[in-house]
């Protein structure tokens, strides 16, 4: 057991140092067919617990430049009405004018503008414009390349996970959920298939 743990720790550290490696250049499309893609959010409920939800429908693509990863780019487009917090009444409320106002703003988009590498831990900051509920603001995603390589079916895949924190009021979301719930954490975890 101990040996196994050690082995996986070594494997993990190897994987993270090999992030942003010299191979894997190309343009990738998110695997929205096989649904190896997730946009999750979490927000505090009253300061007592976490509420998790997700967006079920979105597409995206990225260009990975192995020679200079900071020249890579990514764009994502989300159908806001696909919000899903596992509770129909709440989802209906989230789609309403109090939150996402999906009738008026059916799409949320993110387009990267520049990427800053943090070579020490194999992570990167992806800075770009997020448009949500009709408001466009610059946000920074803390991204990590999780892995890449041939898949068993003749394709080539690369996966990332990125996080950021948004203040609801910054995007014009009027609902007041209380002082503990002014910010929401977004997590995007995706696998791209090289085209």
């Amino acid at each position, binding site marked *: 057991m101990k040996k196994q743990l050690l082995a996986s720790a070594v494997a993990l550290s190897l994987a993270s140092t090999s992030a942003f490696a010299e191979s894997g250049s190309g343009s990738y499309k998110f695997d929205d067919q096989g649904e190896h893609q997730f946009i999750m959010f979490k927000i505090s409920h009253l300061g007592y617990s976490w509420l998790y939800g997700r967006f079920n429908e979105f597409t995206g693509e990225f260009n990975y430049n192995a020679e200079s990863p900071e020249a890579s780019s990514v764009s994502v487009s989300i159908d806001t009405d696909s919000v899903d917090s596992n509770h*129909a*009444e709440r*989802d*209906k409320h989230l789609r309403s004018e109090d939150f996402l106002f999906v009738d008026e703003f059916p799409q949320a988009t993110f387009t990267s503008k520049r990427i800053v590498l943090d070579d020490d831990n194999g992570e990167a900051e992806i800075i770009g414009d997020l448009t949500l509920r009709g408001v466009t603001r610059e946000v920074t995603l803390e991204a990590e390349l999780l892995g890449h390589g041939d898949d068993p079916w003749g394709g080539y895949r690369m996966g990332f996970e990125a996080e950021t924190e948004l203040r609801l009021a910054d995007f014009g979301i009027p609902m*007041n959920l209380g002082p503990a719930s002014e910010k929401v954490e977004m997590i995007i975890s995706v696998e791209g298939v090289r085209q």
Partner: protein
Amino acid sequence: MELRSTHSRYGLAQIAMHWLVAITVFGLFFLGDYMVDLGYYDPWYRSAPHVHKSIGLLLLLLMVVRLVWRWLNPAPAPLASHRQWEVKLAHIAHAVLYLLIFTGLVSGYLISTADGSSIAVFDWFEVPSVTGQVKQLEELAGKVHRWCAWSLVGLAVLHALAAIKHHVVDRDETLRRMLGLSAR
């Protein structure tokens, strides 16, 4: 007064159900309109929808009883003084009122049960979901519910104005019949 209706007058049961439904429909409308604007920290934020849903499902039950009772009883004939087009229009209005009440109630039920969960009626009993989880059903049901509620209240106001017109202008028995009063 007789419980059952006759060909000439409404019985107590139909009169009572008519007014109970009328009060409940308006009560649900105003409660519904009020509850969707409550702040998250309002003490009524959770209880107002609970009461709205509970009363709504009880009203659905009452409406089924009312409809069955209507079929089991003779329909009081229209007043002789009513013109043909008035009778026809009143029948259409009544049919649409029934349709809007049922559609409004069922669509409301479908909002809350669209994720497969049941609705607790005052914690007395639970009404299960019949649809199970259906993606975004709550959106469609919600739009139908809102549309029905406003149409129903609008038509009910017209219905009431028509009754008052018969009472005050025509001075006939239309409203008195539904109040269980004897002919004047």
